[in-house]
Every structure is written in structure tokens, then in C-alpha cells.
């Protein structure tokens, strides 16, 4: 098999260094399986895909459902993103759709996933994001597609931080931006 290199692989050491102080935890979670689903949410096909996922497609805007290590995020009224571990069997979702109207597409290479966690994670992201990221309004079970430092991202809250899904070609830019914006949270207290 050809050697895989993730979009933010070159930042691993600097992410590790920035994670040492306890305020932040930065890391790339490379090679997650990502599947884009488009289907009429009221159709039998949507129901069958939900059965294959083991959870229904969330129909409320800006919400996710999570089961084990698989997350289904609402992207639009007829569009979802499934995020699972490397090797996730998305062919089963395609089989559930069958020949009916809709699409199940592997988009794993489109975006990579950055973990921004730790007590200052939301403060860090707020430097470049206009959304209210406070956990009381944007906690587990929510999701948003928006801009972070002028780059398009998908934000998924996690227990102690957020996942930032960023286009592969923007990953290095966003990694540099995160490390730069993190400076004030890493400096030793005087």
C-alpha cells in the first residue's frame, strides 16, 4: 500500500509542544472516514440509511447524532456528513441507498480533522470565529459550517473541545493560524 501522509502531518511536533502547558490540546486526527450523504429526509431511502448507520439522520439544522465512534452531522436539509474511524464500512450505506434517488460519496480526502481541546479551546477559536461557541449554546450534539480565520470549516463540539474539519488544502494555513493564535495561552505566567 502506498504511504499515506495527512495534510497537517508536518505540524505534529508543534501541536505536541503547544499541548504541554495544559491550557490547550492540539492534534490532527488524520484519515478519518468521511462520507457525504444526500437524500430526501422523508424518503424510505433515508430511513434505510439510518438503519444502516444505527441512528436516524438528524433533521434539525446544526445538530449531530453520535453513536460510539461514528458521528452524523447535519450539513443541509437533504445533506449529512458521516465521520467514522479509518476503515469505516461506508459501502454498507451505499448499499442501503441502492439505486434510489440520492448519493453516498466517500469524501475522506476532502478534509482533515484537527482536535482543538483543553480549557482554552473555545477562547482560541473565538479569535477567528463569529459564532457563539459557549458550551451552553454550542455543546455536544451541535455542529456548524462556518468560517474560522476566513477558512471554511465544519465545527463539531466534543466533550472537552471541538473537532475542526478543514479542507486539506487549507489545513496547513489553519494549523499555522491556530498555533499563532494560541501564543497567549501558552506563554508562561509572569
Amino acid at each position, binding site marked *: 500500500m502506498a504511504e499515506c501522509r495527512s495534510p497537517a502531518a508536518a505540524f505534529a511536533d508543534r501541536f505536541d509542544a503547544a499541548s504541554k502547558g495544559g491550557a490547550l490540546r492540539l492534534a490532527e486526527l488524520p484519515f478519518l472516514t468521511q462520507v457525504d450523504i444526500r437524500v430526501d429526509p422523508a424518503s424510505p431511502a433515508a430511513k434505510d440509511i439510518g438503519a444502516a448507520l444505527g441512528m436516524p439522520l438528524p433533521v434539525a*439544522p*446544526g445538530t449531530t447524532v453520535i453513536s460510539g465512534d461514528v458521528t452524523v452531522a447535519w*450539513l*443541509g*436539509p437533504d*445533506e449529512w456528513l458521516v465521520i467514522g474511524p479509518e476503515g469505516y464500512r461506508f459501502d454498507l450505506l451505499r448499499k442501503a441507498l441502492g439505486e434510489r434517488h440520492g448519493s453516498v460519496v466517500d469524501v475522506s480526502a476532502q478534509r482533515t480533522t484537527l482536535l482543538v481541546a483543553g480549557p482554552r479551546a473555545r477562547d482560541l477559536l473565538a479569535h477567528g470565529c*463569529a*459564532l457563539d461557541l459557549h458550551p451552553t449554546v454550542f455543546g455536544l450534539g451541535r455542529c*456548524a*459550517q*462556518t*468560517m474560522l480565520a*476566513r477558512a*471554511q470549516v465544519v465545527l463539531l463540539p466534543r466533550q472537552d473541545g471541538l473537532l475542526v474539519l478543514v479542507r486539506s488544502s487549507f489545513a496547513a494555513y489553519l494549523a499555522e493560524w491556530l498555533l499563532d493564535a494560541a501564543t497567549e495561552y501558552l506563554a508562561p505566567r509572569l
Partner: protein
Amino acid sequence: MMLLIPCPWCGPRDEAEFHYGGQAHVAYPENPAALSDEEWARYLFFRDNPKGAFAERWSHSAGCRRWFNALRDTATNEIHAVYRVGEPRPVTS
């Protein structure tokens, strides 16, 4: 100046997340081949230019990527209503 535009799906977002799509409710001609050049040009290029409420299309391009319509006051930039494609223009006072 930055408008805060309420996407009918995602809620209020910065204008930078949107693309403008011009006047809404411009119907495609039922039989384009039957139009004269002048009528075709009128369909393609002629748009209303009111001072006040204007129904226009926006796309939430950096968010849910859906098109929707907004009723915006061209003089004050106040957005009176947003509504989904296919819904009629809301009546405002």
C-alpha cells in the same frame, strides 16, 4: 459594514458567509424561443431597482450552501424577512 443575515436553516450569520444572487422571483420564460431579442434582453438584464423592500436571492455559500430569498430594504439594509425557495414573498406592512 457587515450585515447579519438570518439563514432560514442556520440562523444569523455574518454576511461574509453568503453570496448575493440578485432579484428573486424572476420567472424563466415559458417559451424562450418565442421571445424577440428585446424581450429576451429584458428577461436577462432588466431588474427592479426600488428604494425600499426588495426580494432578492442569497446563498449561504460558506454554511449550509442553500439558496433562499430575503426581503431587504435597499435604503436601510434592514432584512424584513427570509424565506425558503418556492415560498411566496411574505407580505410586510
